[in-house]
């Protein structure tokens, strides 16, 4: 018996399971993975569900292979995903770069745990944020989303597919062990209420098709293997025909395209959420599970008479530079709250540009940041200790 891809209704499920359901609801029909705590439950859920909805799950021999298979499946025209954590994320960097260079849509869920190396396999962290941005070699832009609840793991995984398909770019869902293993209420809407997007498709004369000629928004329509376009796809620097060209000019042109489609559409891509920000003197900047901590800290600080607010980064990448710059002109300080020793903090500091001081409430990983730590920082910098 086949089962519906969208499990409309109210559920009690973990962030990992919700991400798996979000993928299926978004139209993902291929998943390749490799077991790793705390992301294994994504693969386990999909292993059971994917064949029910006509898709394919495969456990590959390692994460290098898993990411390669995801890119291959997407080139065959099927929405594809993988899920992993730190050590596997490192192994996926090579073919993440291939997806960037060949402009192949795909989604990678990283349920972060504390590193470096094997670190604390079963305990959460947000230490891969800069790796998400820069982990594969060369210069590039991509998109990362940070869900703060199982419900958001569902919605933002759908959003990740939609952005990935719209811009032909890999999209990272940067969750963490705490959200991944947290069980909460997840409401799955009716299938027809879920907006899904598919990549722009190749049209027109097959012998004249230029696979990398940008269309609307700077994104080229994509031909899948077997559609008769006989395209060539390479990780070498290539021109609009997809042919390798080893010149400085071709490199500049290609880079312009793969960076431009993200940079020129920042307004469409970037999502933030503001909480009590309008009159705030001190702005907490946070994302994922740490944004929940920060929310509580804002209210506590307000009770103490400190005008705090929260800017939540729903898309840590691309970073909302304009927002931070605008706030820097009128606030008394920024506090980045994250489970690492200062990663997105560097971006906040950079964009504040010295016009407002930037502080960090960080943690090396293994647990959440308690609201008290954030309140203590707010007391200190507002002179209320």
């Amino acid at each position: 018996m086949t089962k519906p891809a969208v499990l409309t209704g109210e559920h009690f499920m973990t962030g990992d399971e919700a991400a798996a359901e979000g993928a299926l609801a978004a139209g993902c029909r291929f998943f390749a993975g490799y077991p790793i705590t705390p992301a294994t439950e994504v693969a386990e859920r999909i292993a059971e569900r994917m064949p029910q909805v006509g898709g394919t799950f495969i456990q590959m021999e390692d994460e290098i292979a898993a990411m390669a298979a995801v890119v291959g499946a997407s080139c065959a025209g099927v929405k594809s995903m993988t899920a992993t954590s730190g050590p596997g994320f490192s192994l996926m960097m090579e073919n993440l770069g291939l997806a960037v260079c060949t402009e192949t849509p795909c989604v990678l869920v990283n349920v972060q745990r504390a590193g470096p190396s094997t670190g604390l396999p079963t305990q959460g962290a947000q230490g891969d944020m800069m790796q998400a941005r820069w982990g594969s070699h060369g210069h590039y832009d991509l998109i990362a989303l940070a869900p703060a609840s199982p419900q958001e793991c569902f919605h933002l995984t759908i959003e990740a597919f939609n952005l990935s398909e719209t811009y032909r770019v890999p999209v990272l869902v940067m969750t963490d062990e705490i959200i991944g293993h947290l069980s909460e209420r997840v409401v799955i809407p009716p299938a027809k209420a879920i907006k899904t997007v598919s990549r722009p498709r190749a049209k027109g004369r097959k012998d004249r098709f230029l696979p990398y000629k940008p269309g609307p928004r700077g994104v080229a329509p994509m031909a899948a293997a077997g559609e008769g376009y006989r395209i060539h796809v390479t990780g070498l620097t290539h021109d609009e025909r997809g042919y390798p060209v080893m010149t400085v000019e071709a490199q500049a042109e290609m880079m312009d395209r793969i960076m431009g489609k993200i940079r020129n559409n920042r307004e469409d891509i970037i999502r933030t959420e503001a909480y009590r920000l309008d009159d705030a003197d001190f702005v907490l900047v946070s994302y994922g599970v740490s944004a929940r901590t920060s929310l509580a800290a804002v209210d506590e600080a307000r009770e103490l008479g400190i005008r705090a607010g929260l800017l939540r980064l729903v898309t840590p990448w691309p970073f909302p530079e304009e927002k931070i710059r605008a706030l820097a002109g009128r606030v008394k300080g920024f506090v980045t709250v994250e489970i690492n020793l200062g990663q997105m903090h560097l971006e906040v500091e950079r964009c504040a540009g010295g016009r407002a001081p930037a502080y960090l409430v960080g943690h090396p990983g293994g647990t959440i940041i308690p609201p008290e730590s954030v309140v203590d920082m707010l007391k200190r910098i507002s002179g209320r200790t």
Partner: protein
Amino acid sequence: MSKSAKGSHHPLDDLLRTDRIPHIWCPGCGIGTAFSACLMAMKASGIDLERTAMVSGIGCSGRGAGYVKLDSYHTTHGRAIPFATGMKLARPELNVVVFSGDGDLFAIGGNHFIHAARRNVDLTVVCVNNLNYGMTGGQVAATTPSGSKTTTTPVGNPEAPFNLPLLAFASGATYVSRWTILHSRELTESIEEGLVKKGFSFIEVLAPCPVNYGRRNRQRPMDTLRAYQEKSIIMNDADPTRLQIDFDRAIILGKFVDTERPTCVESYDRTCRPPMEPADEEKAA
């Protein structure tokens, strides 16, 4: 050049990206012959070329995907097979051919090779074995004979090479053969067999790299071809454990494995997919 070639038209022109010629391969290199055999086999096999993709890794051999006028994917070093696995599993109706080098498929990509063979992914894998890393200037490979000189084994290779057909057989490949570029008719027929056969097919092609391997091992292009002629013995169904390449004594060629077992996709469908209800079957029909 085949006899049918007239003027500037080559019989494989419709399968070549002629706008990408000249190719990068050196004079005397064996990759071109292996590549032509692969294209001829594709034509002769009658497979639907509109639904055929070639996937390569990185290396001189890995440039194959760049010259074939089919959907073609030049991926990352060693990852052609897992990329092709994703492609095949996502769209089982595609014919997926992997064309790549020995270093790509058996050193950095060795783990992927054995697992794809074990799963019996329905791929045709053509490996150009030139006994070294040609593209990067002639370093030792997992296929370099013991004692041979390369840029990273300047006084001779202290390690032993893989016996590729044995590795393929032991890993579960359902079709395994070895030819040299001198045996182009047998090679073409063998690739054709691999293409039409369901399951994981592996064809090893011995090909000279005169520029990087031959030069350091006192083999001029003709010497390598002469060795292929003089030392090769065709022995179909030979015991895979006896297929170690030995240029001093014998290089055994032929078809060594040709068996049947369910492919990766067939097993997945049978094992994991829920049985269809009559209503579903009607819809599917």
